[in-house]
């Protein structure tokens, strides 16, 4: 299994480092050709306006959407792909497994609100408010309990977005002061904080587990 990290802008290098520390093959994704090689994809933090532009221009956004929604192709085609060294081992019904942090969380959400919020890919039933916590100075750190993890983890919220509404299908895995900060719906996980900044691997392990379900 290969995990891609969307590398248009943002802290993709930190995510790659976390994946490497877990001995997972990781690939920077900047094009459709790169995307074709991965079974799961992390959308990192960065500026959502910037990343969204790249997603649109390159066609990568459209392809992420298609693969996130499309179940595995019929058996012959799949065998062919496996033989040619293409993607395999995709999780739930063969859909692309996705994890978005911060800006990446905005981009995966159904609806983004707030000033100049870019168009989102609309893959998880969440409404999210961009930069709801204010400017850089309002950034903060927090220790969070996460469903499925034994110990609390250290996280950083940097110009973070805020999840303001979630659909019925969405499961809350962690909250901070009553606001959901890590949620999952099927093959998609989003978090408004940065676990990678502190080199914490737990959320990534949770994400990797999704690929084997």
């Amino acid at each position: 299994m290969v995990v891609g990290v969307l590398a248009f802008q943002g802290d993709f290098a930190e995510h790659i480092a976390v994946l490497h520390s877990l001995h997972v093959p990781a690939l920077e994704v900047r094009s459709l050709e790169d995307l074709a090689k991965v079974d799961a994809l992390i959308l990192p933090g960065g500026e959502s306006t910037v990343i969204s532009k790249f997603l649109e221009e390159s066609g990568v956004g459209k392809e992420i959407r298609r693969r996130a929604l499309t179940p595995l192709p019929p058996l012959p085609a799949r065998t062919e792909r496996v033989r040619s060294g293409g993607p395999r081992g995709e999780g739930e019904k063969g859909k692309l497994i996705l994890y978005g942090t911060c800006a990446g969380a905005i981009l995966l959400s159904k609806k983004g609100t707030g000033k100049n919020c870019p168009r989102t890919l609309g893959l998880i039933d969440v409404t999210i408010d961009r930069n709801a916590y204010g400017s850089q100075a309002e950034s903060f750190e927090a220790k969070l309990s996460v469903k499925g993890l034994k110990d609390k983890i250290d996280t950083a919220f940097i110009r973070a977005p805020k999840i303001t509404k979630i659909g019925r299908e969405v499961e809350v895995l962690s909250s901070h002061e009553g606001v959901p900060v890590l949620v999952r719906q099927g093959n998609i996980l989003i978090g408004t904080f940065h676990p990678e900044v502190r080199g914490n691997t737990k959320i990534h392990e949770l994400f990797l587990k999704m690929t084997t379900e």
Partner: protein
Amino acid sequence: MLKGGVIMDVVTAKQAKIAEAAGASAVMALERVPSDIRAQGGVARMSDPQLIKDIQKAVSIPVMAKIRIGHTMEARILEALGVDFIDESEVLTPADPFDHVQKSGFNIPFVCGATTLGEAFRRIAEGACMIRTKGEAGTGNVIEAVRHLKLIRGQIAGLKSMSLAQLKSFAKQERVPLELVQDVRKAQRLPVVTFVAGGIATPADAALLMELGAEGVFVGSGIFKSRDPKRMARAIVQATTHYKDPKKVMEVSTGLGAAMVGLEIANLQTKMQERGV
């Protein structure tokens, strides 16, 4: 999260919008771009807060603004304005001949310029959260930014072969905490994000510096002093992301029109990089 992005100098809200639309990951609000400061002379100071407010209103990406080196009160004003980053910058006329701002006393992150590892260490020890090369601003000449990035990276690599006694003497000579030097020796990178600035004028310049290990790019005069700022801005953003793909950099460089007029470093009257080391 600015990494992997391009931060663009803007002097009006209109320019800020152009920068945001082109894919800038932040804008730097200032009164005059470095090449104009160079050409017009006089004392260059922090911008009028009204200009910064207008720019904050116009865009949703982070807004940075510059203060003169050591001018703690200009920093307090920007803090009161709620800018996202303060750049204590050699591009403005220095205010304090002895000290930089004690940045740890602020709740706004600071970015500072550096030409060498020692200088970067001093700024980090004062509380800077981001380092950029100084380069030579307003020249459209990339040689100094390349020099500073290579020097800093080379000196970090050089720490590996130093004995404890040598590390101690380096820390003493550079007037920086030994612990910081030891941490960087071990991690083989600065503990803060490292961008490049000063003289970047083309998509190829930006890609060159990314290739050399920069984590992002500041472009000052290079965009709004070029013939077609919108296209130049977009092209530099693309080149910064796709620096590993020369074909892509070639495509965005094609038919861009004239870049800003460049200056030879040897003919400069003022070397901004020598301010506040």
